[in-house]
Every structure is written in C-alpha cells, then in structure tokens.
C-alpha cells in the first residue's frame, strides 16, 4: 500500500517583533527535517527574536520537539530568543510531559510573543 504522506506547509514573514515562521501540518520523524531546514535559514540571520507559530500544527512528536530544542539553543548562542506561539492542547501536552514547557518561552499569540 502506498502512502504518500503530506509534508508541512511553512511560511515566514517579518513582523515588528522579529521574523515569524508559521508551520502547518503534523511534525514527526518524516517532516521535522523540513521544519528544521526552514528554521535554520531564519536562525542563520541571527534575529533578536524568532517567533515560531504552531497554531496550525495538529500533531508533534519528540522529533519535532527535539528540533525546536536545537533551534532554541542556536538562536540563544547568538544572543536571540525563540518564542513559540499558538500551541494546540495536543501539542502542548507533549511539551508538558517532557517538562519542556518550562524550557521554552511560550506565548498565546504573536502579539504576546513580541512583548516577551
């Protein structure tokens, strides 16, 4: 049985508070490299604040969470800050069970994220 699983949809924009990367879809072992590549491109510009909008991410496993840990470390090494926004309950719970909700800056929405 063939199953061509869909990839992620990723877009980025520059807002007043910094670049915003919007991810849509399900983040798992297959799709997390796509998210990683997109975030690395933006993180490479050493932004003061990188906002990752996960409002349209319906599922994330440890592959996705691990990728975000890596990007957060990278952004912080150049003096920046990574902020996650719009976590759906199902995604947020993965951060909670791994206790990474304490490690990440998590904002309700992009407006809140720009004030962190």
């Amino acid at each position, binding site marked *: 049985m063939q199953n061509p699983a869909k990839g992620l949809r990723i877009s980025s924009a520059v807002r007043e508070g910094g670049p915003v990367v919007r991810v849509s879809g399900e983040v798992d072992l297959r799709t997390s490299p796509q998210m990683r590549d997109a975030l690395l491109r933006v993180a490479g510009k050493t932004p003061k604040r990188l906002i990752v909008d996960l409002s349209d991410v319906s599922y994330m496993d440890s592959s996705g969470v691990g990728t975000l840990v890596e990007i957060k470390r990278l952004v912080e090494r150049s003096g920046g800050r990574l902020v996650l926004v719009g976590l759906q309950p199902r995604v947020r719970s993965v951060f909670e069970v*791994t206790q990474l909700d304490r490690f990440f800056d998590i904002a309700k929405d992009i407006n809140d994220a720009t004030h962190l």
Partner: protein
Amino acid sequence: MSALSQRKNLLELDLPSDPRFLCKVRRTVCDWSLQHRWTAQQAAKITLAVDEAITNIIRHVYKCDLNNRILLTVREVEEPSPGVEIRLRDFGQFCDPEQIQGRALEDVRPGGLGVHIIRAMMDFVEYAPAPGGGTLLVMRKFRASKAAKPEVAIDAEPRKRSANQ
C-alpha cells in the same frame, strides 16, 4: 504497509521502516482505539506511544534504513488487567533495555525524549529479545490506569486555534 489482520479485537500491520508511513499508522491506531471504546484522550496517548516507539526503531535500530520490517500488533487484553496491548517487533540488533532508559529531563537537548514519552503514555513497557533476533517491545495501557500517573490532557482530534494556552 500491509494490514495482516484487522479482526474484531486485533490490528496487525506489517510496516516498512519508512517515516512516510507514520501518519497512516497514527490514523489507523487512533481509529482502532476509538472503535474499541477508548476515549479521545486515551486514544491520543496510545497513538503517540506507538508513533514514538516506531520512530525509535527507525532511528536507533535501523539507523534510518528504509528497507526493513516492523510488525505492529494492537489487541484488547483482559489479563493482567483489561486494556490494550501493543507489540512492536523489529528485526535488527537487540536493544539492551539498560540503554533504552531515555535521558534525564533536566538534561535539555535534542533527542532522547521518545522513551520518556512512551513511559508517560503507557502503564507497562517492556523490551525483550525477540525469538529469532531483534527486539519485541510490549506496551500496555489499562482501562483503569494507575491514579498515581500524572494526567496529561491530550486530544485525539486536533483543535483549530485553541485559546487554551
């Protein structure tokens, strides 16, 4: 991916070690769980545990080689307690359970979270050598889960733009 069996209380899948199939497996396991009277939240936990376990096999046992087999069995059990039993069998080198402990959560770095998530989602997790080689992972979730287990809310169906942040 081929369904070996989908009898009343049994789901059997023969999977390639290919991450492209994870999405389909998640849908199948979640649907099976819902059909077997698990709540949406419980079904989501079962699904996440299966996803993480398969991910670990693909990554750590098969080193992302796509041309290997993984056998997944999901079935209702009555013993030792009513619930669901999930068996995942791979054909790689046996993984020593001592090396599958996952990392301490205080040690924040990418990777090493899958085992922790599996143990948090399920009530029983056991790795054993499979007859003929490879590893057999047995996970169980009981209808009456231990009250001491921290309850984490997980929804089976994603919500759009929830305000519950």
